[in-house]
Every structure is written in structure tokens, then in C-alpha cells.
């Protein structure tokens, strides 16, 4: 592929300092007050409301600075290694910061990037590349946005996002010797312990539920609430409903596909017919749904601002709920665990989680997050062990 050869040439002109400066500058442009880039993305994105883009991008990029990039590179890439000349990045979903980081991280590792945008979001990757070009055309020359599947065959490394079937399909095209990072189906949940005021926890949880309209793998599908004394889960559910209602004004939900409306209708119906549930929902609208469950049984995973609040008696009950999620658990949001947080961490890691964070931060992973338990840079490069 000619594109890949050109990208490989462009990469030769880069050094880490220059790349870090360009990336940090681009992130700064995107998170600046009144950012023109955010405004443009809000106009062109089509999935999320402008308010969501404006708030979500700014909040997500907080801390994505030059020093954070330097620390990450120093942490991950100390030693003798060779970076891929070109990394092919196959994007999925519609969350802009996920596209930004997927492009930025291989660049930080010293690789050029050929990025295929997702069908749901053809805009974010392109606009991010444009912002790089505005700051340093030389760095931007090492990024190409395209959709040629040959890039999977010919790139030196591949990063892929998507469903498990998509990941398996892409993986099958990549020669075994080449680095491959696949980010497949994942889901997340919140666990609220006894040491937190229900209303406070609910407000933080509402942000996790509402951000990116519950479309990401970091969106909580369930909220487990320690129901001791009895009634705490109901308090959380009620306060969560109020907080989601308020957030609908500040961060209105964006566009849904026909199938998504049907999915929400089905989720609501399934919740409604279950014995003992209590539903709170936006009147006459599908913008949010809170279901208070009556048992510790696992209901269908929520999505699109639909969340089930599940009363649990204690940590053992939470463990029983979490453990079977092992192949697909990503993030656990916590509140009110106090001195028992280490116990929750043990539970979470055993269930395959790669992130345990305070409620209200679930959708805002740091740049150096070990996404799906893998270092963001180390798996991309080829290491040399020098023995003397």
C-alpha cells in the first residue's frame, strides 16, 4: 500500500519530544474553553447532543498533558525496543476521546498510524488528525485516515476495537508475529457500599450513566447497592432518577437508531413484567430509565441510560454477582467501601476488571489506563533483551 509506505517515511521525521508536543498541543486545543474543535465536532458528530460533546470531550481530556504523555512513555517504554513503522487502528463506537487516544498512543510509541474510523463516528478521527496538522504538519503526516482493509495485512501492528466477532475476524487477518491489541465486548458496573450517603452516590453515578448516553463499555450496566439498612437501594434508585432527570437538561441524550428505541422498549418491558421491580422513567420519553430490582438475580445489562439498581446484602452477594462477568468486565465504579476497598479490588481483578475508580469517573479514564489490562504502549513494540 502506497499510503503505508508514505506513513512509514513520515514517521522517520518524528522524535518523541516533537510527537509529545504535537499531541499535548492538540489535546489542549480540544479541551480549551470555547474550543473551536469541540464546536465543530458537536456540529458534525450526529450521535451525541452538542452539550454532551462539549462537556464530555473537555472532561475526558483533563490531565492529557505533555507531562502525562512523558510519564506514560517513560513508564512503558524504558529499554531497547523497536516501534512498528505503521500501526493500523480499526476504530469502533462513537465516543470521541476513545478515537483520540487510539490514534495518539501508537504515535506516542513512535509509530505512524493508519486509522479506519467507525461507521458510527466518521468524524472524530478526522478532526483529531486535522488538529494535529494545524499544530505540526510533520507529525500529522504520520497519521492517515482511511478504510483500506489491506492496511490490516501490511501494517506492522494492529489495534482493533469492536465486538468479539469483529475482533476475531480482524485478528484472523493479522500474521501471528505482528503485535495485535484487540479491545472486544466489555461492560462495567457500579458497586455502592455502606459508607456513603445514597444521594451523593446517586449524583455521581448519574454522570457515569448519562455520559456518552450509556453507549460505552465503561457505562455502568448495573448498580449494586449495599441494602443495609434495608431501603438504601431504593433511596439510591430514587435519587438516581432525579439526578438523571436533571442531567437530561444539562446533557441531553442524543440520537437513537430505530433498533435502539426498540431495545429500550424491550428492556423496559422486561423490567416491568419482572415481579417486584419498580421502574422510574422519564415521563413519555425514553431518555432515561431506573429500575429498582427486588432480588440479587442479574437482570439484562442496561444501556443507553437504562440502569438497574440491585440491592445486595453484603460483599459476598456482590461477589456472586460480579464473578461470572469475568470474560467481559471492564470497569467497576465504587463508592462507600471505605476500608473494604481492597476487598472490592480483589473481587474486581478476579472478575477480569481492569479499572476500579470512584463513581463519577467511570467514563473518564486516564490516558495511561491499562485498557483491558494491557499496557497502552508496551504491547505495541518489539523489545530487545540485552545480555552482556
Amino acid at each position, binding site marked *: 500500500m502506497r499510503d503505508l509506505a508514505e506513513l512509514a517515511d513520515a514517521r522517520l521525521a518524528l522524535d518523541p519530544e516533537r510527537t509529545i508536543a504535537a499531541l499535548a498541543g492538540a489535546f489542549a486545543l480540544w479541551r480549551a474553553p470555547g474550543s473551536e474543535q469541540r464546536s465543530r465536532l458537536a456540529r458534525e458528530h450526529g450521535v451525541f447532543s452538542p452539550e454532551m460533546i462539549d462537556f464530555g470531550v473537555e472532561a475526558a481530556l483533563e490531565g492529557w498533558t505533555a507531562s502525562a504523555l512523558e510519564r506514560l512513555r517513560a513508564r512503558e517504554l524504558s529499554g531497547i525496543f523497536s516501534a512498528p513503522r505503521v500501526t493500523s487502528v480499526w476504530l469502533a463506537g462513537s465516543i470521541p476521546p476513545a478515537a483520540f487516544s487510539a490514534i495518539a498512543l501508537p504515535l506516542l510509541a513512535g509509530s505512524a498510524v493508519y486509522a479506519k474510523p467507525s461507521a458510527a463516528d466518521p468524524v472524530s478521527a478526522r478532526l483529531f488528525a486535522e488538529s494535529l496538522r494545524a499544530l505540526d504538519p510533520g507529525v500529522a503526516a504520520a497519521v492517515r485516515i482511511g478504510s483500506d482493509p489491506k492496511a490490516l495485512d501490511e501494517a506492522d501492528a494492529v489495534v482493533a476495537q469492536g465486538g468479539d466477532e469483529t475482533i476475531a475476524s480482524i485478528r484472523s487477518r493479522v500474521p501471528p508475529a505482528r503485535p495485535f491489541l484487540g479491545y472486544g465486548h466489555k461492560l462495567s458496573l457500579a458497586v455502592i457500599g455502606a459508607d456513603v450517603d445514597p444521594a451523593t452516590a446517586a449524583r455521581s453515578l448519574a454522570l457515569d450513566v448519562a455520559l456518552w448516553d450509556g453507549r460505552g463499555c465503561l457505562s455502568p450496566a448495573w448498580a449494586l447497592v449495599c441494602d443495609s439498612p434495608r431501603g438504601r437501594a431504593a433511596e439510591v434508585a430514587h435519587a438516581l432518577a432525579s439526578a438523571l*432527570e436533571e442531567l437530561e437538561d444539562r446533557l441531553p441524550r442524543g440520537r*437513537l437508531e430505530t433498533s435502539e428505541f*426498540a431495545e429500550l422498549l424491550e428492556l*423496559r418491558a422486561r*423490567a416491568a413484567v419482572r415481579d417486584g421491580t419498580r421502574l422510574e422513567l422519564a415521563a413519555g420519553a*425514553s431518555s432515561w430509565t431506573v429500575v429498582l430490582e427486588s432480588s440479587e438475580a442479574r437482570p439484562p445489562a442496561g444501556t443507553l441510560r437504562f440502569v438497574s439498581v440491585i440491592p445486595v446484602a453484603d460483599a459476598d452477594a456482590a461477589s456472586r454477582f460480579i464473578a461470572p462477568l469475568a470474560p467481559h468486565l471492564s470497569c467497576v465504579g465504587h463508592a462507600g467501601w471505605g476500608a473494604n476497598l481492597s476487598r472490592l479490588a480483589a473481587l474486581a481483578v478476579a472478575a477480569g476488571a481492569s479499572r476500579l475508580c470512584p463513581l463519577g469517573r467511570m467514563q473518564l479514564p486516564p490516558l495511561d489506563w491499562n485498557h483491558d489490562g494491557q499496557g497502552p504502549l508496551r504491547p505495541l513494540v518489539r523489545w530487545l533483551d540485552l545480555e552482556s
Partner: protein
Amino acid sequence: MDHARRGTGRARARAHAAADDRGAPAPGGDRGAGGAARVTRAGLERAILTWIAEGVDAPADEARFDSLAVALFRLQFQRGPAYRRLCAAFGADSGVVGGWRDIPVVPTGAFKEARLAIFPPEATLRVFRTSGSTTEARGALHLDTLALYDASLLATFRAYLCPDVERIRFAVLAPAADGVGDSSLSYMFERAMRELGTPESRFWIGAAGLDLDALSSELARLREPILLAGTAFAFVHLLDFLESRGARLALPAGTRVMETGGFKGRSRELTREELHGAIASRLGVPRARIVNQYGMCELASQFYEASLRTGRMTDVKSVPPWVRTRALDPATLRDVAPGEPGVLVHYDLANTGSVLAVMTSDLGTIVEGGFRVHGRLRGAEARGCSLAADALLSETGAAR
């Protein structure tokens, strides 16, 4: 679902839909909400059976349907606690509707969560379940009578597959009902075979799977027309088998084929057009004698293409007079514009013991004479009646 218009400063009350069954009439109470006239289930079923007995060519009388559907809804609202909870959640907690189009619809997923039945569990005669793995929730239709189920299935099966014969030899590419007692598809084939089949009729999928050697030999020896019926998956297995041997059959004139179900992404997938083309080419059955059936576990009635009945090829599914089908926008639950695709919702009067308004996960359009199916909603769960047969094929080492 989005009935409320967005706007700044709107006051949006929250709907609380508690699972509260108190205050509902006790089972057996026959007075409808709002003081409606006394309607018994037995009386309703008699009226519906009468209509079904008039056959698929009976007038699809709107007033007749409306009156029966509204009365049936009242009964199901009064006696079905799970359905009543759903109605409450969707703001229809009075049990009173203006007409059949206002009856709250039940997405098929709800059949996985609760027993949607208006009779006590001990009265259950049969349970049909959606196909699926042992670990995932499966939808279930609970029945305390098979009278309406049988009447509806036989009326349509006869009309669309055997309009020209009293009896015909069945060759069924699906397991018999005694092997998969919760399969509505196997039950349907068995019931139809009993009523319309000759003594040589048989099921071709047993405990050992589909015996393709024996089946193809049998088909090659035929001198009389048959009804070859089964899941789309099973037909793919048969076609692949014949192709691998370079065999091309010419089934006797008068033979008809019925296939049903999707492919579920579990093996080679074909479009309906490709499947029917391959059946015509490999089995020697004219395209106009190949009929697709659309059915679902949650409904008592099924839908057929009228190709065989009319002699004209069509992909339109005919709707019997005792059923109504709409294509809805799931955001508003209103009918989509004519010719536009929407989510298919069926109102089946033969579903007396559960709920009559069932919302599918299929996209379709309403057209003259019935509806067209465009496929599953993207992202909807894969499920359907052909999976069980295919799973059985896979578990038993696939087709021999």
C-alpha cells in the same frame, strides 16, 4: 417512546410504575374495566374459533376484530399480573383502551422474564420455548388449551401448503415433537402431519441428527408428490450435501416446499432468494411451489407466502383474518408511513391465554395483502425457531 417534545424549561413529571397488583380483579372475575359487559373467556374463544373455522378467505371484518381484541385485552389485563405490570409501566393502567390499536404491546423479550399467562400454573398444558442455549434466558408461551393454537395452525397450513390435496406425504427436516417437546415448530409439523399427512410421512431429524444419505436416497426414489418442510438451516445442510455429491434431484410434480426460520449466523447464510433458487435448482421444485413461513414461539398463528395457493410467486406474508399486523416506529409506537419499514407487531386473537399484542424484533413493511419481512433489527438478539434444529445438528456431529 419519546412522546414528550424536548424544550427548555419543560416540567417533566416522572412516571412511577410500581409492580403493584393490588386492586386488580380476582381471577375469574368477568366484569371488564370501566363497567364493560360481562365477557367470559369461553365465550370469547368460541367466537374466535368460529372466525378461524371460516378460513383464511373469511372477511377481515374490522369491527369484528376490534370488538374481540378489546374484550380479549380486558381479560388479559385483568387476569395477567405480569401483563398488568407492563401496562402500568407504559401508562395504560386502567385496562381500558379505545380500540385494538391502543392495546399495549409486549416485546418478545418480556416472554423471557415472566410467565405471561392468564391461568394458574397448574392448569398449564404445554409450554413452547424459544430456541437458545441452556445458559441464556428463553422466551416461553404457556398454554392451557391447544384448541385455538391447533385451529389457527391447521387453517393456515392447509390453506397455504395443501390447498389442492386432502392429504400428502410429509418429509420434515426438523425433529419430532417428542424429542423437543417445547418446540412450537416441531409441534406444528406434528399436528399438521397428523391432520394432513399420509402414513408414509416422517421426521428426518432424530437423535443422531439428519440422515442425509437416507433422505437423499428416499427423495430420489419418490414417484408421488410430497410436502418437504423444515428449517432453512436444514435445507442448507441438504443442499450442501447434494452439491458435494454433484446430485440434482427432480422431485415429482405437485411437490411443495415449506421452509422457515433464519440462519442466526451459526452456519452458511443465504438470502431467501438464494435459498429458494438453490432449492429450485437442486431439488427440481418450481419457485412458485416454495413457500416461506414466518412464525414465532410467542404467537399461536403463523404467516405464509401465498405463492402455492395463488400460483404466483410472492414474498408477501399473508395475514389471516383473526390477526392484524402493524409496522411501528418504536420511538413513538405509531404506525410508520405507508411503505416505510417499521418494527412488526402482531395482534393475534388465537393468543387467548397469554397476550395478544406481540412486538417482534423484525423490521418489515405493510403492503397490499400482508407484510414483507426485511430482517432482524440490527443488534437484536439472535433467536428463532431454526436454531434448535441447527444446534441439534451441530451437537450430533452435523449432518451425516
